[in-house]
């Protein structure tokens, strides 16, 4: 058997390829078909039912709110990149306690989104949450707000919490990138009289493209499939104000039993992934 496999190594790929084919590509194909099927209620039906789900989407204001919010979550990318880079540069200075802070920065990302969603719901609670209490304590009562319970501030509140969760992780990706710059290059630059600022600007930062791409892809992927954190923190509310496409997809599918419409929203997400994330991963792969 071992000899047979050694002679035909490609056979080893058959099972994983088969599983990927079934669970990814068959799943995508199934979802595409469900979106145009005549499935009604909980009764699975796979006859052709037309493009009603996509037509409904055009006139559905909730869909556009969900799409807007999903795209709005992309604002966490530049914020996390800048914050992460600053934190990485600070940690690279070899200051005392760097190891402790490295672990502290990684901690939010190590926690489940369900846990962090619950923690932020407590922190944001307008009457008993730590955030408003702290603001009152330091005399900034005018800055207290309704945070995740107000239609006006719910999305900024979500973005703030996600920046907290992701920036430490991004910092560690950048720090790994910085540490991978050969010490000989840095020493050579120093011998040539380059300042620390110039070393970072001319030598280190240009070599962080890989770390940058990885960070952007990870955060963008999260933004597109953002569900658990927002579901726990706001449930998509108040009203529709924090609906994202995955949340609307879940509610339409399992609460309203509109399976074709839920599948159609899933397909829009797929298109967004293809348009926004795939070019990045493709570029990274080519590198």
């Amino acid at each position, binding site marked *: 058997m071992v000899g047979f496999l050694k002679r035909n190594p490609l056979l080893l790929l*058959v*099972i994983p390829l*088969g*599983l990927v084919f*079934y669970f990814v590509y068959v799943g995508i194909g199934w979802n595409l078909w469900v979106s145009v099927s005549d499935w*009604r*209620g*909980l*009764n*699975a039906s796979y006859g052709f039912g037309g493009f009603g789900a996509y037509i409904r989407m055009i006139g559905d204001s*909730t869909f556009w709110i969900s799409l807007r919010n999903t795209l709005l979550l992309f604002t966490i990318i530049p914020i996390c990149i800048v914050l992460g880079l600053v934190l990485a540069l600070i940690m690279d200075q070899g200051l005392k306690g760097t190891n402790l802070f490295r672990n502290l920065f990684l901690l939010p990302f190590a926690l489940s989104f369900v846990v962090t969603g619950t923690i932020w719901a407590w922190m*944001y*609670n*307008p*009457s008993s949450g730590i955030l408003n209490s702290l603001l009152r304590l330091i005399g900034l009562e005018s800055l207290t707000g*309704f945070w*995740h*319970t*107000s*239609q*006006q501030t719910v999305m900024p509140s979500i973005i703030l919490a996600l920046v907290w969760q992701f920036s430490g992780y991004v910092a560690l990706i950048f720090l790994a990138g910085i540490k991978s710059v050969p010490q000989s290059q840095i020493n050579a630059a120093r011998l040539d009289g380059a300042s620390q600022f110039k070393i970072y600007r001319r030598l280190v930062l240009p070599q962080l493209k890989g770390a940058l791409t990885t960070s952007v892809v990870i955060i963008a992927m999260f933004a597109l499939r953002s569900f658990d954190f927002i579901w726990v923190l706001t*449930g*998509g*509310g*108040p*009203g*529709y*104000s924090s609906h994202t496409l995955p949340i609307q997809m*879940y*509610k339409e599918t*399992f*609460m*309203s*039993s*509109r399976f074709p419409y839920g599948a159609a929203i899933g397909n829009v997400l797929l298109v967004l992934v293809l348009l926004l994330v795939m070019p990045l991963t493709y570029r990274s792969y080519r590198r």
Partner: protein
Amino acid sequence: MVSWCLIVVLLIGVAALPGQGMAAQMDLASILEDTAASGRFDVYHWWTAGGEKEAIDFAIAEFQKRYPDLKVVSNAIPGGAGGAMVMKVKVLALTGNSPETFQAHPGLELQPYLDAGMLYDLTGLWEYANIEERLLSGIAELCQVDGHYYIVPIGVHKTNMIYYNKRLFDQYGITAPSEPVTWDEFWSLCEELKQKLPAGKYPLDLGDRKGWPATHVFETLMIGTDPQIYEDFINGKATEEQVKEVLDRFKRFMSYVAPDHSARLWYEGAGRVVAGDYAMMLQGSWIQAFFTSQGWTYGEDFGAFAAPGTSEYFGFCIDAFVVPQGSRNVPNGLRWAYMVSDPQTQIAFSRAKESVSPYIDTPEEIYDELTRRFRDELIDSQTMVYPSFTHGTSLPWEAITDLHSRISDFATSSNPDTERYARLITQALREAGVRGEWDIVK
């Protein structure tokens, strides 16, 4: 190659799971009388708040007295009104893992399950346990679908009540209005509370983090505004003008509600009423069990009155259980459904839950003063009952899901345009194809 074929066969099997066959009708007597049955099974419900959790635990304890070797796994999905639990149950059902039994409301809420042939026909069980003859009038009709029964009721709550912190009223010298309460009296009471309560305390709270308490208030204000609007609404005939009239009243109601109302679940809001932060809450009578769990007594610590304009009406919320066809062990689901109607279960459950038992053989002595009043109202032929749409009986899920979001959107807007929301709400009913034939206006 063999292993590859095996995987293909398994995958095809997994894909076919949701469509697995329906259980045939079984020999009920042998199933229900088999008290030596063993194993474990799942019961899904949404009772997690103080009082109601104890009630379901009592029901389980009664079940295990009869079936001591059957372990009941109580799966509580928090949130109230079933929204979160329904999603979980639907996912389980579609993957071929239906629980043996789950909580539901009779009426249109069951339609998606019935259309999919998911529910076990419990007509035989109704006959075996003599349920139809034992029910209070009006309940059997709501449970029946085309001459069959698919659900067994466990408790009834009145939905159109306003509960208030009596100690807070006394402290600020406020007198609760005597029933029947008119709208003018109610607005005067809210205004008086607003004037007398110190900063940080509010006349009302909603606790609508999960959305449904806002819809609950909306439906109660609707019946209080005009029962004809309610009837038209659940029949899919309400006009935008009618809905706007209700929303205008709702807008005024919201001006007395604590501004961070959507940060809390209903029982967290009730907890703040107990703490004296908010004076009143418009809720169903399930709030009483919560108050009791906090050490409160009716008449001393809290009072209650029917929402303005609704004193002749009884908002019906019937809690019940169904048995899915495709579960791992349908007989265990049947045993649970049977025990739900058991007189001893009814005594233990109704006493803790402070719900009205749907069965006439439940002794009156188990009720506290307020629940006994509700039972008397329910059996009084002059009382007009209306089926709650927030709690699944008179509108389909498709409509309710949209309503929850639109009404929650309304309740959390700083200055909502009632005309626009009236249009959105009537549009939601149209899209869901609501066409009822309810007749609630006598």
